[in-house]
Structures are given as structure tokens and as C-alpha cells.
């Protein structure tokens, strides 16, 4: 009686020993994310969590653009995700475009024995922007151009930009690598400067219009100085991100993660 009871209960459940890769590819190429999620959930319900399931879950998290879940599943897959060198390179490149800390977190989890040459170079590039004294000979010529650009601006001092803007309004912007803004800044400051000069010349300093003109000119002049000083910090971050984006684009893999 009890045997029959257990047999009856087990009847509706059929076990799937492994994930059907061709079926998963069919779901991916037809863009059926809901069914894909349901397929992996069903396998998990019936057979529990195992390494290859976590591997497929990690790849699904890439399609759904859930980066943290991808890292979580890749850790749970017991190195199965890391052994897919193409996937590691793909994700390293993708994370590098988003943030350095996320890339470092990801590469911290991947054992170095699974790093391809591209992943190695990505890590070296991150270390290079944090410490300019390291050897940059591994960089290709066009990446070297962006790196040199970053190093040039990284060496510049914000106070120099401020002083240059104080001497000639807008010159700090040229120092910061913004030539088009330099012309506009110079024209705007010249515009208000001549107004102030004419007002003081013809009406004297104690006239209300002279005070107003002087006030307006001072705001533009001082904002130019402080803005150039502050902008150089922004420019350094931009150059760093530009270099790292170029590295990510160069080392990204052309082999798709599903095929």
C-alpha cells in the first residue's frame, strides 16, 4: 500500500539530468527570457542547484543585464563560469565600461589561472591608471595614444589652470583641453569687461551702473578662475574613463556567449 502511494506521488515528476543546451540556445535566439527563466527554475525545483545550472543562470543574468546576480551565480558555479575564457573576457570588458570597482570585484573572484591574455591586459590597464609608474609597454600603439593623453592631463595642476584663467580669461580652459569653450569664455569676459571699462570711464566707479557692470564682470571672471580649477579634476576623470573605454573596446571578444 505504502509503495503504491510513493509510486503514485512520484509519477508526475520526471527528472532532467542536465540542461539541454540546444533548447537554451533556441530560447536565447528567439528572445524568450520568460521561458528561459522558467526552464532554469523548473530544473532547480526538480533537481536542486548544481554547477552547470548556475552557469546557465549566470549567462541568463547577462541577458537580463543583472550584473550583481551574474557575479553571484558565477561564484556559485564552482569555477565553471571562470573556465569559459570567452565569457570571462566578455564580462571583464563589459564591467570595465561601467566601473573600475565592479571590474576589480569581478576579477578578484576569477582565479588568475583562468585569465586570458585580454583579461590580463585589462587588469594591467586598471593598475596602470592607478599607478603611472608601472610598465606600459604591453599597450598597443593606439591605446598608448589614449594612455599618454591621460598621463599628460593627470600631471597638470588645477592651480595652474586657475592662474592662467586669471591672466587671460578662458586660457585655463585651453590648458584643460577645451579649446572651443576657450573662445566663448574669452569673448564673454571681453564683452562684459569692455562694458565695465566704458561705464567706469564715463560715469566713475561710484555710479550704480558701474557697480552693476563691475559685479557682473567679476562674477564671470571669478567663475572662470574657480571653474577652470574645478574642471581639471573632471577632465582627469574623463581622460581616465576614455582610456579604459578604449581598452574595453579593444579587448572585447567577438565570439558570442551563445552559439
Amino acid at each position: 500500500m505504502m509503495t503504491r502511494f510513493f509510486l503514485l506521488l512520484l509519477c508526475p515528476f520526471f527528472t532532467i539530468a542536465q540542461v539541454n543546451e540546444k533548447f537554451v540556445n533556441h530560447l536565447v535566439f528567439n528572445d524568450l527570457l520568460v521561458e528561459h527563466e522558467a526552464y532554469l527554475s523548473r530544473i532547480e525545483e526538480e533537481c536542486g542547484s548544481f554547477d552547470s545550472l548556475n552557469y546557465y543562470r549566470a549567462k541568463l543574468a547577462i541577458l537580463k543585464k543583472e550584473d550583481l546576480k551574474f557575479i553571484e551565480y558565477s561564484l556559485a558555479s564552482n569555477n565553471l563560469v571562470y573556465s569559459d575564457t570567452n565569457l570571462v573576457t566578455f564580462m571583464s570588458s563589459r564591467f570595465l565600461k561601467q566601473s573600475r570597482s565592479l571590474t576589480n570585484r569581478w576579477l578578484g573572484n576569477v582565479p588568475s589561472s583562468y585569465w586570458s591574455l585580454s583579461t590580463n591586459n585589462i587588469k594591467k590597464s586598471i593598475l596602470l591608471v592607478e599607478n603611472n609608474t608601472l610598465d606600459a609597454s604591453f599597450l598597443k600603439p593606439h591605446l598608448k595614444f589614449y594612455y599618454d593623453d591621460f598621463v599628460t592631463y593627470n600631471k597638470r595642476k588645477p592651480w595652474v589652470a586657475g592662474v592662467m584663467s586669471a591672466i587671460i580669461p578662458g586660457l585655463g580652459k585651453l590648458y584643460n583641453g577645451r579649446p572651443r569653450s576657450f573662445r566663448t569664455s574669452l569673448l564673454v569676459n571681453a564683452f562684459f569687461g569692455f562694458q565695465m571699462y566704458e561705464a567706469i570711464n564715463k560715469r566713475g566707479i561710484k555710479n550704480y551702473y558701474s557697480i552693476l557692470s563691475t559685479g557682473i564682470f567679476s562674477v564671470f571672471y571669478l567663475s572662470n578662475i574657480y571653474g577652470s580649477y574645478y574642471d581639471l579634476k573632471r577632465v582627469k576623470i574623463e581622460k581616465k574613463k576614455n582610456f579604459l573605454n578604449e581598452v574595453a573596446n579593444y579587448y572585447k571578444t567577438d565570439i558570442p556567449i551563445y552559439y
Partner: protein
Amino acid sequence: MKWLIIIKLTFLFTINVFGQDSINFILLNLEEQIFFAQNDTIKNDLYLEKFNFSICNNLEKEKLLFELNRVQEELLTDSTEHANYLWNAAIVTKINNEFTYSNMYFDAYIAETKDIFDDIKILGLLIKSEIDSAAYANFYLEYVNDTSFKCMECLNDLNNFVLPHKKGYVLASSIFPGLGTVLTGDFYNGLGSLILVPSSIIGAVNLWKGGLYYNAISWGIVSIPRLYLGNTNLTFEKVNQLEKRELSKLSVACKALYRDMLIKFPVFYRF
């Protein structure tokens, strides 16, 4: 033993009835059958079954459109099934703003079935009004031609609505800064234009009279054209907003009429 079978069957059916997860699993089961199907006819039947299932379970309109696009119409042999597919396709494409396809499916449905019940008239009027007024008029004359549906012309009127004297507002603002903006209903911005444009002119003239020639010319060149043209542009934007407000009011009334008609003659999916 009997009780065990009853409990097991109840368990199976309840799993399948309740919850979004169960819908996803059914979609998955259908997709698996599609994957393992031997030939295109069986696959197509399964595509149709999945499409109908998605409709029954009120899935997102993008998912419905996706499933619709997988069905191959030419492989549907049963005429009733084909007609129902065309009807459902007309509704799904309409909901997804694919009005050209919606019109195509609707015309194909009418050509196949030659039906012209009230729900068909309503859906037809909704679809034709999105194409153009000629299609709407032709459909009305040929298939509807019923005074009880006369009120539904409001949608066609909405499509052809134009605010009268649009250029008059802009002309008024060109002659008297801010007047056109005030006439559109935005009093504060109109007042702002009225204050700023003349005051910039007066300011420039006063600077010239005071001997500050560079100041007068520079402020005059920078501020006067900018404020004057800005005033006319603002009036133009406000006129467009006024037109949208009027259309919105008319559309509320028209939508209510259509809603009443849909209560009387509801449009259902067909299976």
C-alpha cells in the same frame, strides 16, 4: 487508493490554475513542444496555441505581438481557426499601434467571413480612424450606415481638428509683445514678455543717451532680438499647447462615447 488519485489530480490542477509562475511553466511547456516538433505544420499549430494562451492570460501587449509574428498564416488550414486568428491579430496589432497591419488583418477578416456584427463595426471604426478620413468614411458608408453609430464620427473629427486663427496669436505677439501669449491663457508669461521686451529697448536707448555707446549697442544686439524672437517663439509654443488642451477636452468626451458603445457592444477575442 481512490482518495490518493483524487488528491493527486487536485494537486495537479491547482498547480496549473494559480499563479504567474504556473503561466510561465505552461509557456515553457509549449515552447518545448515547439522545439521538439517534427514539422512546420505541427509547429505552427503550437505557435497558434501559444498565441491564444498568451491572450487568455492577459500577457503584455509586446509579448502578444511577438507570439503573433511567429504564427504563419498560410499554414492555417481550418477556416474558423484562420478567421479567429485574423480577428485576434487585428486587435493585438491595434493595441500595439501597428495600425497598417491592424487594417490589413481586419480587411482580411471581413473578406473571409463577410460578417458585419456590431462589435466588428466598432473595431472597424477604431482601426479605420487611425488610417485616414477617407478609409473611415468608406468603411462607414459601406458597412455601418447606422444612425446609432453616428456619434462615433467624433474620432474622425479629432484627427482633423485644427485650432482656428493659429497665426493670429503669433501676429498679435509680433505687434504687441505678450498679447498672443495672454490670449492663449498664459497671463504671467504674457506679462513677462510685455515687461521685458520694451524695457530692454528703453534700457538700450537710455544707455545710448547717457553716452555709454558700447554698452547700448552690446546690450541692444544681445538682448532685444533674443527677447523679441523668444516672445514670438513662446507664443507659438503656447498656441500648440492650447491646441493640445482643446483636443484633450474633445477626446475625453469622444472616449466616453466610445466606452459606452463598447459596453453595449463589447469586443472580445475569438477562439
